[in-house]
């Protein structure tokens, strides 16, 4: 506790740094996974190999990935850009499957009816498929968010500051309080972001909450 009282400005700064890595990585993952997942769902021939590739990608260890990425996209080795790119790779790999599952979970009868009353292919995507797939996709985004918050700490090993810096620094200098603070704040951050996503999900899918509730008013 005494360590924290003396160092909270630094913790706060690292917390902000942590968010600055997490939020863009999750955002980019969603932006990339949506079209990829849509494609995989529309064309199962492409989808099968794509999902297999995603699984393989997720299995690549973090440190080699952090070295390969600068080579591939030209970002500096010890930069937040490299870190965000690596996190996005993992995020997309996890999320593509949720997107495919989400679209797959949309009721066929509902899709058929929507087409029959005049939705265009674009209209189907934005007005029918995405909203109805949202609960499943959002479940995936929650997993990706929590896992990204954890993965960001690894950045400390290549010198990208985050709450993970508390862990490396604490270990090196043998300050237990610093390590504990790092762990606790990281976990708390993950829980808070997760709760925020749950709330956002409720706000975005009002029909799910109201299912079959309230008295049925007889008409006229």
């Amino acid at each position, binding site marked *: 506790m005494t360590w924290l009282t003396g160092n909270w400005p630094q913790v706060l700064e690292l917390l902000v740094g942590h968010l600055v890595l997490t939020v863009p990585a999750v955002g980019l993952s969603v932006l990339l996974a949506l079209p990829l997942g849509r494609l995989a769902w529309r064309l199962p021939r492409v989808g099968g190999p794509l999902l297999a590739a995603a699984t393989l990608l997720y299995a690549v260890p973090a440190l080699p990935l952090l070295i390969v990425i600068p080579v591939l996209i030209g970002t500096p080795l010890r930069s937040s850009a490299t870190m965000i790119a690596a996190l996005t790779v993992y995020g997309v790999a996890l999320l593509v499957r949720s997107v495919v599952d989400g679209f797959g979970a949309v009721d066929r009868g509902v899709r058929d*009816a929507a087409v029959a009353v005049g939705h265009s292919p674009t209209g189907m995507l934005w007005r029918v498929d995405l909203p109805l797939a949202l609960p499943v996709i959002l479940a995936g985004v929650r997993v990706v968010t929590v896992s990204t918050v954890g993965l960001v700490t690894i950045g400390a090993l290549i010198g990208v500051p985050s709450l993970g810096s508390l862990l490396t620094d604490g270990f090196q200098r043998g300050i237990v309080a610093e390590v504990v603070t790092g762990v606790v704040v990281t976990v708390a951050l993950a829980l808070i972001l997760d709760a925020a996503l749950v709330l956002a999900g409720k706000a975005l899918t009002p029909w799910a909450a*109201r299912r079959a509730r309230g008295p049925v008013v007889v008409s006229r």
Partner: protein
Amino acid sequence: MIEFEHVAKHYPDGTVAVRDFSLTVPSHRCVVLLGSSGSGKTTLLRMVNRMVDPTGGRVLIDDADVRDSDPVALRRSIGYVLQSGGLLPHRTVADNVATVPLLTGATRRAARSRALELLGRVGLDESLAQRYPAQLSGGQQQRVGVARALAADPNILLMDEPFGAVDPLVRRELQDELLRLQSDLGKTILFVTHDVDEAFRLGDEVIVLRPQAEIAQRGTSVEILAQPADDFVRGFIGADRGRRSLRLATSGGRQVAVDLEGHAVGILE
């Protein structure tokens, strides 16, 4: 006017849903397709809005082959009440009714007031407008389906067993409303049902279908009842079991129509 010219539908698995079907549905008329399950009624209906493309023959709307029209624009111009209701579960009742106006770029305000007007027309209270379909009873959902089909003020209405999922009383009420709507609006209606009474009540013309959409008989309810074409039709409308036979009894100086078991069904004026 809708014309079916020798349409056929063969599915790749070998199923023949429609063998060779021709029919003209005159403008401002209600024609009912009456047939048992699997006789190809839904298939025929969906050929009109290109949800099914025939494998033979063609469908014309006002002399234009539907195959030459853009399917999305075509579907928006035709009101379709689906067999299963087919409301979008994530849209409020008002938004469901306003589906086509919203798709064709009406302002939210205009779409909303149109939706409320239509809810009134099909006998639903405005207070239901902000509910979701899952919060409605089956009969209310079917009314919403009818309101949605009317929203863009289409000339043509396709109605696929629209009152299937409700009890006989509500069904009769919905039929009354449709008859009232039809006398107001004069749409060209192609109506599908397997309920003989419903077909006779609503149809200016009734088409009795055998499997593979073969026409067993066509005519007004009076014609079909008076002269069933064959045993199939007789069986389908229940004439063979005496269900359609009435006789007159006199009681208190009035003539009462009774069925063969002696139950009163009405009074002769």
